[in-house]
């Protein structure tokens, strides 16, 4: 790792005031630190966000779920309050990385990084979540803008995510056998008759909503409704792990399993 100066922030305002030049915010560090160790990133300064009380915590009021950006995957996975209204999100969080990663990695860090194979972006997009920052509120549909790209401006900090728990939701992923990142993951939501389906791990420009899956499920929210669906391979990733055609089929298969999980 290249030399770096460490700063610990005590509040969101303190963190923002420390962000200058090539500084990077450091949350759980489950992506940033490995990247720095590989010398693929070399921030001159890191600003530790993990000791900021106002970024922590889970609040569920009726169906409105608010999760502080500094909440770890393990905390989301184990939250009885979230499980009561949206168990699919707990299921998703409990399958990120491994137990040690889940003890450190945070929801804010995951979505700010927007890895094209990360799990949370699919949930945020399908749940139509609102991403709160220290400056504004951004709908998930506008937040994820490309590979590792978000609507965040320089120095902007994700503070929380909020969504209204839907009638039904389910998530399934086909994990890469080595990294356990999603080779394709689909989060489906049924709420008041409308369907949203977001796909991670497959798109060349990151997470996206699948019109084909949504239209088929809008008629009938059953796995069998997807039998005749063809997901186009256009715009899907091809790499050493899977071709675009293979991923297109995985989108359909994972969507069927996600629907099964949502109804189960």
């Amino acid at each position: 790792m290249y030399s770096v100066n460490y700063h610990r922030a005590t509040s969101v305002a303190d963190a923002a005031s420390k962000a200058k030049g090539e500084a990077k915010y450091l949350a759980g560090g489950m992506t940033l630190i490995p990247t720095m160790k590989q010398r693929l990133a070399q921030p001159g300064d890191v600003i530790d966000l993990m000791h900021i009380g106002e970024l922590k915590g889970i609040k569920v009021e009726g169906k409105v779920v608010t999760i502080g950006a500094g909440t770890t995957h393990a905390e989301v996975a184990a939250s009885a309050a979230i499980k009561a209204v949206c168990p699919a999100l707990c299921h998703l969080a409990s399958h990120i990385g491994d137990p040690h990663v889940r003890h450190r990695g945070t929801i804010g860090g995951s979505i700010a990084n927007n890895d094209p194979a990360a799990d949370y972006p699919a949930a945020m997009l399908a749940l139509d979540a609102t991403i709160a920052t220290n400056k504004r509120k951004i709908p998930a549909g506008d937040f994820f803008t490309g590979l590792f790209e978000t609507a965040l401006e320089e120095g902007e900090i994700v503070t929380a995510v909020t969504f209204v728990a839907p009638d039904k939701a389910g998530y399934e992923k086909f994990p890469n056998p080595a990294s356990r990142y999603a080779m394709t993951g689909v989060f489906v939501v049924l709420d008041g008759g409308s369907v949203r389906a977001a796909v991670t791990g497959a798109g060349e420009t990151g997470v996206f909503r699948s019109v084909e899956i949504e239209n088929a499920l809008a008629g009938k929210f059953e796995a069998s409704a997807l039998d005749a669906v063809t997901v186009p391979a256009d715009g899907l990733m091809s790499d050493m792990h899977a071709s675009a055609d293979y991923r297109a089929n995985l989108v359909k298969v994972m969507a069927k399993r996600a629907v099964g999980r949502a109804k189960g």
Partner: protein
Amino acid sequence: MASVSMTVNGRAVSGEVEGRTLLVHYLREHLGLTGTHVGCDTSQCGACVVHVDGKAVKSCTMLAAQASGSTIVTIEGLADGADLHPVQAAFKENHGLQCGFCTPGMIMAATDMIRRHPEGLDEKTVRAELEGNICRCTGYHNIVKAILAASEAMAKGGKAKAA
């Protein structure tokens, strides 16, 4: 440089480290606690797992400065004098190791796993929970046996030590 102070295996320690010093290097090179291993350097193998404030984390993926103010337990901190921790005893009894390189991380992961599953463990759960720990000897069979045995022994003995 960054000033760090933390409690490691019950002992208060402090010192000056570079900002980039990883927790595992602080433990090994500054404190001489070489039981915690570096296996892969890519945050995948889990040989470096220690407990930070009661939770299993990869000490190769955390800066020492991030851990300042925390309470750390390493493999050296598990045994009670000459008495092995029940998980250590179970690894010995079940020969839950071959070359032994991954063992410190396996044992720290196992104690954390048992703490999080007071209802008990089954083989499927243990194997899923070992996702973050790699044994290059592929000696998983006896590792799983050892963890199941330790879980049972600790449930019976009420020795679910929150290490």
